[in-house]
């Protein structure tokens, strides 16, 4: 468990960590020269058939080849993918947070704040000196500037009286700023600890279930060699299962390296025999995941059909007035609901002949990156291939987001975003519906709680890492667009785990879990927010400072509030309706159009921020 303090993080030599990763990589190259020598000088050289021929000779040559193969696999799987990559990823992550500290700590010190408390939950408080300065009506210049008063000269004059009258403001401003720095510091340390723990897990779990080595030549060789070969043939499946079940400790980048090192036959075998270990895994290329998930979707529907038939049969034999019947009926309805959601999703992304459907307006294929019927359901669907796109925009929905929405309203918005991005730029944008977390079902109490965002943070972090890992060529310009509680999801993931995004967009936000854009680990100039003037959300920032506030420190863009109440006396309708109006495109008769919001979003997503209004 990471126990680093901020001072220890600040002083880490990340260059040394990275250099060690490089050293491991060059060690691997040296070792590969040795296995090459083994093959060339021994198996095909001094020990070739011309010099040594018999059944035993064949067996020994095979044994040496197995030994070389094993070591080469070890060098790839352990020394390179695990150790060297872990070191490089840790060095990058630590360095990013060190850079944050380089900016933050001088600010804290210059304001005369103190950092207190344990390293997991630092507090940033006013120092005794700062307290005294405010109490003695001698506040520092920076605080006077923030409050908008002239710094008193030390005599009882008008400026001193102003300081006295504004002492509550002075305190409030100082405490508010300290709170923002505290959020920032905690976020930096949270991400650093997360990266540290992830790195340690990747190394520790490496040795959990390694493939056995070939047996030594000797009395037990014949008995053991078949077991060894069987172990090797199961090796890929065992690794794939550990990765899919989350017990491998591997990052998406490491998963990607592992996948790239498999042979075509091994990949095909996994797809054929275990699509469940391929489809949901961040780090495996999109095309393979889509293929696997479509198979899983078919299987899930078939399985639900069987369960429904069995449940209906069971119901037929029950007393309709019994509690048991009621329970079974409820379960049956749940199964039918799940089936209906999955079938609609399938129909939305699949042609009648079974081939993947294309979203006609942008001419981009739908890719299924994951789905789940547990809870309110999950779905990750992309319009366009994120691996090859210039821009990737992942839309993270909020309260009420569920599996049904993946072929309904949530997908409508995703398609609107895809179309807007396509219209805004010639570059290709993949637009992803990322409902990879269990979204709250209700505003009260569920959306008031941060646990949904906390629980989903690791998954969103890994999704962004996966997009980076599977990118072909230059990394894409990656945007996370949260709506409503989805902004809390994005902000929480960014502050606590870290996300590998270029831009964060918060729309109709109730707060993002931190009070300052600086805490998000993304350049503040790439943090955007918009809440239209009628949106009800502005009255309930329950998850911290609203990101549209100037004090939050990000950018804002304009969104209209185009929806009208249906009756003059339904005063609440404008407020609630306009919370959901950001993607209105006027495509249906009588439908509102939020052109300015959509166009602003499209410009951010396609890297044309200068056109944002």
């Amino acid at each position, binding site marked *: 468990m990471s126990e680093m303090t901020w001072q220890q993080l600040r002083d880490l030599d990340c260059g040394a960590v990275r250099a060690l990763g490089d050293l491991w990589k060059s060690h691997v190259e040296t*070792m590969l020269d040795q296995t090459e020598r083994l093959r060339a000088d021994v198996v095909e050289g001094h020990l070739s058939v011309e010099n040594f021929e018999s059944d035993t000779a064949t067996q020994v040559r095979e044994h040496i080849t197995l030994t070389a193969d094993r070591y080469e696999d070890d060098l790839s799987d352990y020394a390179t993918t695990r150790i060297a990559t872990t070191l490089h990823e840790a060095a990058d992550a630590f360095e990013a947070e060190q850079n944050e500290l380089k900016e933050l700590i001088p600010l804290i010190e210059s304001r005369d704040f103190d950092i207190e408390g344990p390293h997991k939950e630092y507090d940033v408080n006013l120092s005794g000196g700062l307290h005294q300065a405010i109490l003695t009506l001698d506040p520092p210049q920076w605080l006077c500037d923030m409050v908008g008063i002239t710094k008193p000269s030390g005599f009882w004059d008008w400026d001193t009286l102003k300081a006295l009258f504004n002492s509550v403001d002075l305190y409030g401003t100082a405490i508010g700023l300290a709170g923002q720095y505290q959020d920032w510091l905690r976020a930096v340390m949270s991400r650093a600890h997360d990266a540290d723990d992830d790195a340690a897990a990747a190394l520790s779990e490496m040795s959990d279930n390694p493939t056995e080595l070939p047996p030594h030549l000797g009395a037990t060789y014949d008995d053991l060699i078949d077991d060894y070969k069987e172990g090797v043939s199961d090796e890929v499946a065992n690794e794939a299962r550990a990765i899919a079940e989350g017990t491998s400790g591997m990052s998406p980048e490491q998963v990607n390296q592992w996948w790239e090192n498999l042979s075509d036959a091994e990949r095909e075998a996994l797809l054929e025999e275990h699509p469940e270990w391929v489809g949901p895994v961040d780090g495996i290329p999109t095309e393979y995941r889509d293929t696997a998930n479509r198979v899983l979707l078919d299987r899930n529907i078939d399985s639900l059909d069987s369960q429904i038939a069995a449940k209906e049969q069971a119901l037929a034999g029950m007393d309709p007035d019994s509690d048991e019947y009621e329970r079974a009926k409820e379960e049956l309805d749940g199964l039918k609901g799940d089936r209906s959601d999955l079938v609609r999703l399938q129909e939305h992304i699949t042609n009648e002949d079974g081939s993947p459907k294309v979203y006609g307006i942008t001419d981009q294929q739908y890719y299924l990156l994951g789905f789940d019927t547990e809870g309110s359901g999950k779905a990750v669907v992309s319009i366009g291939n994120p691996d090859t796109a210039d821009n990737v925009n992942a839309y993270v929905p909020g309260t009420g987001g569920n599996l049904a929405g993946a072929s309904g309203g949530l997908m409508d918005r995703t398609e609107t975003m895809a179309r807007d991005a396509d219209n805004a730029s010639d570059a290709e944008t993949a637009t992803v519906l990322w409902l990879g977390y269990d979204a709250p079902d209700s505003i009260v109490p569920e959306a008031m709680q941060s646990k949904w965002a906390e629980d989903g943070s690791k998954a969103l972090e890994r999704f962004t890492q996966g997009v980076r890992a599977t990118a072909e060529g230059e990394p894409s310009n990656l945007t996370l667009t949260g709506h409503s509680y989805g902004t809390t999801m994005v902000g929480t993931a960014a502050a606590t785990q870290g996300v590998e995004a270029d831009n964060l967009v918060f729309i109709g936000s109730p707060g993002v879990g931190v009070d300052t854009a600086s805490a998000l680990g993304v350049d503040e100039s790439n943090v955007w927010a918009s809440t239209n003037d009628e949106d009800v959300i502005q009255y309930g920032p329950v998850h911290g400072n609203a990101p549209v506030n100037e004090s939050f420190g990000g950018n804002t863009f304009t969104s209209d509030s185009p929806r009208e109440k249906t009756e003059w006396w339904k005063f609440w309708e404008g407020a609630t309706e306009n919370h959901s109006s950001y993607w209105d495109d006027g495509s249906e008769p009588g439908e509102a159009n939020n052109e300015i919001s959509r166009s602003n979003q499209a410009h951010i997503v396609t890297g044309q921020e200068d056109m944002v209004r």
Partner: protein
Amino acid sequence: MAGADVFTLDPDEVHKSVAVLFEIEADVKSQTDSMVASNADAAAPLTAASTALGPALEAAGEWWKIHRAGGFTGLLGNTGEYLAVCAQEAVEVDDFNAGTFASVAGDIYPDRANATASSRPDW
């Protein structure tokens, strides 16, 4: 060799292959020792900085040295010893044990640490 329809064995060439095996074994051992020492050196300040990575890195280096690189060199040594015996007196794989090598090593490979043969699991 019993059971073999065809049998060719050029003792000089087989001994040369043994020499290569022992050489690779020694090279890999020494390069791994050096790599893992560098690894431990780099892990120390990480451990001192209370990271989780530091101890995990040091343990990973040791695991690599003992179980993977060490396993590889162990296999090379064992195979070399087997081939050395083969070149001297034809044996089957299943008939081989470290003691057999010990009986011929003194003459042919006097520098090899035969004294430790009895500590091997197949002794």
